[in-house]
């Protein structure tokens, strides 16, 4: 698979190009920018991120796990009598339950981010294009995944949409 990379001069041009290409039936699009561009998700038709759900599941699992751990360890498996307090004492379990909830929620957020973005992946065909190095510095790029036959018409379309430059990125052999 190859990628056509096109640089655009501002947010508006990038958004318009993304919308237009989608109208023409290209759906394997992506945009690259040094900061999040407002409205790009809608223009590219990206769905909402699933990170919040992952965080919720992780957080609940952490909190429940933390509580059960304390109950089982101090109340069932190895009972310690502290000043004749109940072996299973809910109020004293609150701090650790909260901490394990936060810990697991945070770990799931980051691992979820890695999984959804495919990190770590230090090589990607787009890095083959030298000019693309500006994508994280000061330039806005649109990338379209193309097969051999699509290459020419999409390049033409990108130029018509006002691309400052268009390059083809292919995986190095």
């Amino acid at each position: 698979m190859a990628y056509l990379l096109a640089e655009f001069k501002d947010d508006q041009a990038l958004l318009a190009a993304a919308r237009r290409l989608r109208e023409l039936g290209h759906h394997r699009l992506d945009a690259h920018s040094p900061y999040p561009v407002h409205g790009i998700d809608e223009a590219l038709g990206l769905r909402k991120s699933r990170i919040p759900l992952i965080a919720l599941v992780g957080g609940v699992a952490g909190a429940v796990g933390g509580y059960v751990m304390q109950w089982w360890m101090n109340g069932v498996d190895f009972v310690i009598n502290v000043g004749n307090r109940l072996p299973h004492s809910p109020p004293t379990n609150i701090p650790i339950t909260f901490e394990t909830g936060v810990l697991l929620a945070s770990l799931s957020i980051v691992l979820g981010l890695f999984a959804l973005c495919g990190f770590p992946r230090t090589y990607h065909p787009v890095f083959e294009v030298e000019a693309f190095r500006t994508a994280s510095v000061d330039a806005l790029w649109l990338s379209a995944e193309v097969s051999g036959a699509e290459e020419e018409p999409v390049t033409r379309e990108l130029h018509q949409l006002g691309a400052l430059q268009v390059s083809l990125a292919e995986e190095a052999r």
Partner: protein
Amino acid sequence: MSGVIRRVAVEAKDLELLEGTPVLAGRPGDRQLTEDLFQPVWARTRRGWLALFGICAALTGVLFTAIGYTFAVGVGAWGNNIPVAWAFGIINFVWWIGIGHAGTLISAILLLFQQRWRTSINRFAEAMTLFAVMQAGLFPILHLGRPWFAWWLFPYPSTLGIWPQFKSALMWDVFAVSTYFTVSFLFWYVGLLPDLAALRDASKSRAARIAYGIFSLGWRGSAAHWRHWRIAYLLLAGLATPLVLSVHTIVSFDFAISQVPGWHTTIFPPYFVAGAIFSGFAMVLSLMIPARKAFHFEHVITQHHIDNMTKVLLATGLMVSYGYLCEHFMAWYSGNPYEYFVFFNTRLRGPYAPVYWLMLFCNVVVPHVFWWKKARSNMAVVWVAALLVNVGMWTERFNIIVTSLHRDFLPSSWANYKPTIVDWSIYVGTLGFFGFLFLLFLRFVPSVAASEVKELRRELEHEAHAREHAPAQGR
């Protein structure tokens, strides 16, 4: 007609008044910003940096030597005794962890409140958090007595067949501090990813490109990345906010749930949290003022930032003062003779009274200098005041711990405490180790979040644009 024009003019002036000094001076382009902010990373190693690094590395050596000595001899090498069983170990633990809290406050709480002035200083503050928590973590481990069994604190299925005792505030500490360190690290690293990628792409040498390429994990600034990243970053901020409050609350429980006069008070959690933010902001200022000058970051870290931080210092300083007042009031009003004795005898007139009065001067008197705009805009004044607050917050922990312990219920068990050279070496050593890590951070990582400043610049531009066009359309 002229009335309309005058009204428009007044509004523009009002806006300027409302906005005050800008959060970003001028409108540098993205490339310019990238170059400015990454310049400390690419620049040749400077003599000043090397000299400071040498000092900090030497102090780090002192730290590890003192730790090695403590391992060999045992905690008897410290000045701790009975009744003062918690001394430097816990003072420094609470002091360092409190310093860490401002970093989370700046990056997480101010992000949730959409405070723009946080953007230029959050990376800096987060790094401070991370390194401060590392120092903090050392102390309770060394204080264990047998630090080589530190992992016994964690619940793991061992051949001993026993589990930790979760009703102890010290176990809560283990979970709070390890969670805090992990979450702070994740938050910092996730925020750093776009800038590591920019470093990879802007680098001129192959070695730098490979190194930053590995650490940026393949970040391509893709819309799909940003979509997940934004929500992940926001959620981490949302989690870090209650976490930071919980951590210092739990630290205060170490004291508050015991029965020692001077510790057994319900005001401890909020009073500790306010003190943590107070000392943390002071530390951010102490570090940022020299760094800002050395790297010529005055256009990114503007007077606006310094002004806001000093105001936070003033506000939290007042809260801390209220805490002191409340403690004394309750000691008197409760009619408990032991409590009364600690607050009105030991602290004011005991052997450690000078430390107490120094604390009152640094924490209660000094912050009031920030009522004056002149003082807030004089960097020398701000820096000295911030350093004094750091000193003040250290003496506060000394007072809470040593002063409360050395004279408790039974006069026959009273004893004074004197730190040994090993105590001082470990404390000063952690200052050096902190500086060591911080200097490495300043050298290899952009200390201002470039991607966030670029986004801020975009927002400011859109607003300026909207403001120029709005009055014309409105009338």
